[in-house]
């Protein structure tokens, strides 16, 4: 029986593993965390349908539980990856017939953008933390009480040369609209302001959700990047931006500021590329073999990619790439 190692147990890795298992191929998932699932474990609801994230996760895990040919190795990282062998951080070597890298991305560390006051002021939070709060059904200010005015800032750690992140993280715009609607539903009398650079509503249903946020939920959209955040005497946050559509500076006090943190390439990618002869993009994400005909293939025969390892992607796209990578693996194994 052929054996394939999938590195990363997020949505892309899980999908890839279940497709390979269906083809009667033995699979080992190597996962850094203590359990598989990946980032989706921390999300609350998924745009644009507001599907609970745990429903998607449960369905994917269900597909994996019934298989005997699956081995899950949690709490370990892959240091060297070749089609025939994967070396773990413990020094252990696993033999295989092909490998799939599905290690995803790293969330941008908002403390780097010091001007936004994350980690300095109490009520500056990241979009990931807000998802956690939604999960706990406990969205509140640090000092207690409900926020009356909330600002959501797009492009934190995206399209920003100053923090070496030139790329667009793709899903933050949609997340910002989704979270604004959720906040508005939770606090109907609160004012929610989204500060955006461009609204990139690329997927089906996204633009419709944006319009609904504007007209049904009265969410305010201001085109301009917040330049700085400072505290006020009454423990609120003063934000400054340019309202670029009127060409005038704008300032206001808010109770809570949500930073839509972008997707950063894993720091690990650089060493992985060097040690395994894989090609890296200038953004730090892995370079697929071809943007049209080889999206899930790497420059090394027998090493495949799935999900956000090659670029920021949403959950649906990552799952699809899991399927595509499994298909690529099967074709490659047949050729040999």
């Amino acid at each position: 029986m052929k054996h394939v190692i999938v590195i990363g147990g997020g949505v892309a890795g899980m999908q890839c593993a279940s497709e390979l298992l269906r083809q009667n191929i033995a699979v080992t998932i190597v996962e850094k965390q203590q359990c598989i699932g990946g980032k989706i474990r921390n999300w609350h609801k998924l745009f644009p349908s507001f599907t609970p994230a745990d429903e998607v996760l449960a369905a994917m895990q269900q597909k994996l539980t019934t298989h005997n040919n699956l081995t899950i190795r949690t709490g370990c990282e892959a240091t060297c990856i070749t089609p025939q062998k994967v070396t773990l951080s413990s020094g252990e070597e696993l033999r295989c017939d092909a490998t799939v890298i599905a290690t995803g991305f790293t969330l941008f560390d908002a403390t780097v953008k010091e001007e936004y006051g994350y980690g300095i002021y109490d009520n500056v939070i990241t979009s990931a933390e807000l998802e956690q709060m939604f999960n706990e059904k406990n969205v509140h200010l640090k000092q207690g009480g409900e926020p009356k005015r909330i600002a959501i800032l797009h492009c934190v750690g995206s399209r920003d040369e100053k923090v070496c992140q030139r790329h667009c993280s793709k899903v933050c715009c949609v997340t910002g609209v989704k979270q604004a609607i959720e906040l508005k539903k939770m606090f109907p009398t609160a004012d929610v302001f989204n500060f955006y650079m461009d609204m990139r509503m690329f997927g089906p249903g996204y633009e419709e959700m944006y319009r609904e946020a504007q007209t049904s939920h009265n969410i305010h959209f201001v085109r301009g990047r917040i330049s700085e955040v400072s505290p006020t005497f009454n423990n609120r946050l003063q934000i400054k931006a340019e309202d670029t559509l009127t060409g005038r500076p704008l300032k206001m006090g808010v109770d809570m500021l949500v930073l839509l943190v972008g997707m950063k390439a894993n720091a690990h990618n650089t060493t992985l590329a060097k040690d395994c002869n894989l090609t890296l993009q200038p953004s730090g994400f892995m370079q697929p073999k071809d943007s049209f005909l080889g999206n899930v293939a790497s420059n090394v025969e027998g090493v495949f990619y799935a999900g956000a390892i090659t670029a920021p992607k949403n959950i649906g796209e990552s799952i699809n790439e899991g399927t595509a990578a499994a298909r690529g693996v099967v074709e490659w194994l047949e050729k040999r």
Partner: protein
Amino acid sequence: MINFGFSINRARTIDLDRNNLRKSNEIIGEMPELQACIGCGSCTASCTAGNLTEFNFRKVHTLVRRGEYQGAYEEMNKCMLCGKCRLVCPRGINTRGIVMLIKRKLGDF
């Protein structure tokens, strides 16, 4: 008053804490479609009045939404209600209706 030879400019900043948003909320409440504006500028590009004067419909309604009412009524008076903006608006906003609404709400500003 002594003339010191200089003057102090009024701050240009839109201060959403000081601005009274009551009228703005009333306008958005009556015609929520105004919030659907994506700032494309089609209205201003096709505007007959805007071709002859400084009138900029997109900018004026955005300012009104931020609680900046000063001069908005006078600006809206430049509109000839030809309705070309309504024909081109990609979000289907009844722009002529917005002009009339802003004039009605801000007549005393």
